[in-house]
C-alpha cells in the first residue's frame, strides 16, 4: 500500500448529506475485474449529462456544468469536503478506488458509513471526521475563496487551513501506523500464524462441526 503522510491540496466542497456508494460509483462500472480506471466515472450520474456505460470515452461525454467538481476552480482537488454519513450503502471498495483514481486522497466529513471508512484506509486514503460545525465552516471558507487549500498532516493529526488554523482530528493508532508506513496488513497478520493456529485448534475441540 502507498504511504500517506502529509497532503496539501485544493479542497472541493460536495454539499450533500448521505452520499451513497451508488452515487460515488454507479453499478454499471462495478463489472470491472481491476482496481484502477474508475476515476472518470466517479459521481458519474451527477458529473455528466448523458448516461455512462463502461467503455465510453469520457472526454467525448457531456459534462454537467452545474456539478461542483466540474468547476474549473476545483480541478486537481485532492481533498473532498463532505456532509454526514458519507459513503453509505454498499461495501463496494470501488467507491474509494474511484475517489483515489480521480485524485482525492483525503475526505473530511462529520461522519462516514462504517465500511466505506474502513475501505479508505486499505487504499492509502485518509477519511477525517471533524465536528459538523467545523466542517460547515470549512465549506463556507472553501466556497468563499478560490484556490482554497488545506494541509493534512497525519503524523500530527491536524488539518491546517490557509489562515494557519490547526484543527486536530482523531485516528486509530493501528490504522495511522499502517498509512504512515504503507504497511501490508495481510503481512502483519501473517506474523501471528502460530496464534491463529492455536486458536483454531481450540475452536476445533469446542465446535467440531465447524471443521469439516
Amino acid at each position, binding site marked *: 500500500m502507498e504511504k500517506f503522510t502529509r497532503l496539501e491540496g485544493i479542497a472541493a466542497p460536495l454539499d450533500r*448529506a448521505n452520499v451513497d456508494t451508488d452515487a460515488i460509483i454507479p453499478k454499471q462500472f462495478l*463489472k470491472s*475485474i481491476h482496481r484502477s480506471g474508475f476515476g472518470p466515472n466517479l459521481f458519474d*450520474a451527477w458529473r455528466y449529462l448523458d448516461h455512462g456505460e463502461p467503455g465510453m470515452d469520457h472526454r467525448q461525454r457531456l459534462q454537467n456544468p452545474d456539478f461542483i467538481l466540474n468547476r474549473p476552480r476545483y480541478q486537481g482537488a485532492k481533498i473532498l469536503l463532505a456532509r454526514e454519513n458519507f459513503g453509505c450503502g454498499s*461495501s463496494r471498495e470501488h467507491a474509494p478506488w474511484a475517489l483515489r483514481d480521480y485524485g482525492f486522497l483525503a475526505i473530511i466529513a462529520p461522519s462516514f458509513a462504517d465500511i466505506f471508512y474502513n*475501505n479508505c484506509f486499505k487504499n492509502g486514503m485518509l477519511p477525517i471526521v471533524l465536528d459538523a460545525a467545523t466542517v460547515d465552516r470549512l465549506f463556507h471558507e472553501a466556497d468563499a475563496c478560490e484556490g482554497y487549500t488545506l494541509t493534512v498532516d497525519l503524523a500530527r493529526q491536524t488539518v491546517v487551513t490557509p489562515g494557519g488554523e490547526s484543527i486536530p482530528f482523531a485516528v486509530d493508532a493501528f490504522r495511522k501506523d499502517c498509512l504512515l508506513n504503507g504497511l501490508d496488513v495481510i503481512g502483519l497478520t*501473517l506474523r501471528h500464524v502460530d*496464534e*491463529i493456529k492455536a486458536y483454531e485448534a481450540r475452536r476445533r475441540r469446542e*465446535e467440531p462441526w465447524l471443521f469439516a
Partner: protein
Amino acid sequence: MIAQTLYDKLWQRHVVRQEEDGATLLYIDRHLVHEVTSPQAFEGLRLAGRKPWRTDTVLAVADHNVPTTGLPMEHPDVQPSAAAAKIYQRWFRCIEDPVSRLQVETLDRNCAEFGITEFRMGDPRQGIVHVIGPEQGATLPGMTVVCGDSHTSTHGALAALAFGIGTSEVEHVLATQCLVSKKSKTLLVKIDGAAGIGVTAKDMALALIGHIGTAGGTGAAIEFAGAAVRALSVEGRMPLCSMAIEAGARAGMVAVDDTALAYLQGRHLAPKGAQWEQAAAYWRTLVSDDGAHFDRVVTLDAAAIKPQVTWGTSPEMVVAVDGAVPDPAQEGDPVKREAMERALIYMGLQPLTPISQISLDKIFIGSCTNSRIEDLRAAAQVARGRKVAATIKQALVVPGSGLVKSQAEQEGLDRIFIDAGFEWRDPGCSMCLAMNADRLAPGERCASTSNRNFEGRQGPGGRTHLVSPAMAAAAAVAGRFMDVRTLS
C-alpha cells in the same frame, strides 16, 4: 460473571489476539464470495503468491450479474462431468453483456484455481448469496460470517456475527482467516407487542429506520428483540437484519430460540446426530444475558406500525401507507430540507400527495431482503385470483434461489403469479441493483421489495419505493399504492 450481550459473546469467542488499543484479530468461520467484489481479491492473492487459509470455510456464488430470464431449462449435474461442463457453457452464454460475463467467468476460474466450492449458474442451489447461506446451513449460530457485500448482516438472523467487508478485507480473510477489527457499540432494538395482520418484518425495519435515521445505527451492532421479533420466523428475521445496514449499523442479529433451531435442523451443512445435540446445547447460550448492558436501547410498539412506503431517495424517507409525502417547508434543519427537496424532484413527487395516489409503472418482488418462500407466499396470497393492473408495464417475481423457486413451484405459487400477470423469473439480484438486464427506464416508478431506494439504484433515473412483498403485490393489482390491510 458479568452479564453479556449476544454481541459480546460472539465477539469474545472469535478473538485471536487483541492489542492494547482494542484492535483485534478476529477469526472468521464462514466466508461467502460473489463475483462483483472478489476478482481483485483473488488477483491480490495471486500477485503476493498467497493461498487461501481454509477453503472449506468459503462458499461462492454468482448472483449480481446473472440473467433471470431466457436461461436453459436443462440444469447441469452437480457432479463435474463433460456433459455438465457443456451445459454450464450454455448457461454462461446467456449473459449478453460481455463485461458481466467476464466477471462471472472470472469467479468460476478463481474458484477452480483456488479450490473453492461454488454454486455456478445453472446449479439448482445457485441464488442470492444471502439467501443461499442460511438455506444451505452454511450460516450457523455462533459463527462469524463475512462477505464482500453490505447486506451480509442478513445472516445475523441466526445469531451469527455477520457483516459486510470491502475487497481488501476479502483478500485478508482469504489469506489469513482473520480480520483486523474493533468492537462495535451495541444497540438493542426492542419491538414489543404483536404486529397487526398485513404488517411484516419489512414494515418494522422501515419504521425503525424512519425513526432513528439511516445513520442512527452507525458504528453499532443491532440486536433485535422483543415479542414481535420472537414471533417472526427465521425468514421474517432476515429482512430485519438485512435492513440493519440501511440504519447504518455494522451488523444485525437475533438471539437463538426454538424457531432458529427448528429452521436449521436437517439443513445440508448443519451438524447431524450427536454433533447436532452438542451444537444445539451451545447455541442455546447465544442470547443476551438478563441485565446485559447495551450502549443504547430503542423501543418500538409493533401494534402501532402500519405498512410502510418510502417516498424519497433514502430508506429513512418513509411514511405509513395511509400518510402523505411530507412537505420540506415544514422541516427546520436546512441540510435535511435540501435533501428532501432534491429527493422530491428526483422522485417526481409533490409535497402532501397522499401515498395512495401514487401510481406505478413497475413492480419488483425479490432481493436478498424479500425473496424467500414466505415472501413469495405473502405476495401470492394477495395476487391469488386477481390481475395486475393494465397500467403496470411489468411486474417481476424473482425468487432468491433455485431451491426457493422449486419450492414455490411445488406449492403452485408460480401459477398464481403467472395467472395474475406477473413474470416468474430465475434467481438472482435482478432489479434490486440492475446490474443485469432487469432495470427501470428513466422516470419509471417502481414498488420494490428490495432494500435501497438510492438515486439510480434500479436503473438510471428510476424511482424506487420500498415496500413489503404483500404491499408490492397489492400495488401491482391496484396500479397504485394501497393499504394491503383493506384487501379482503
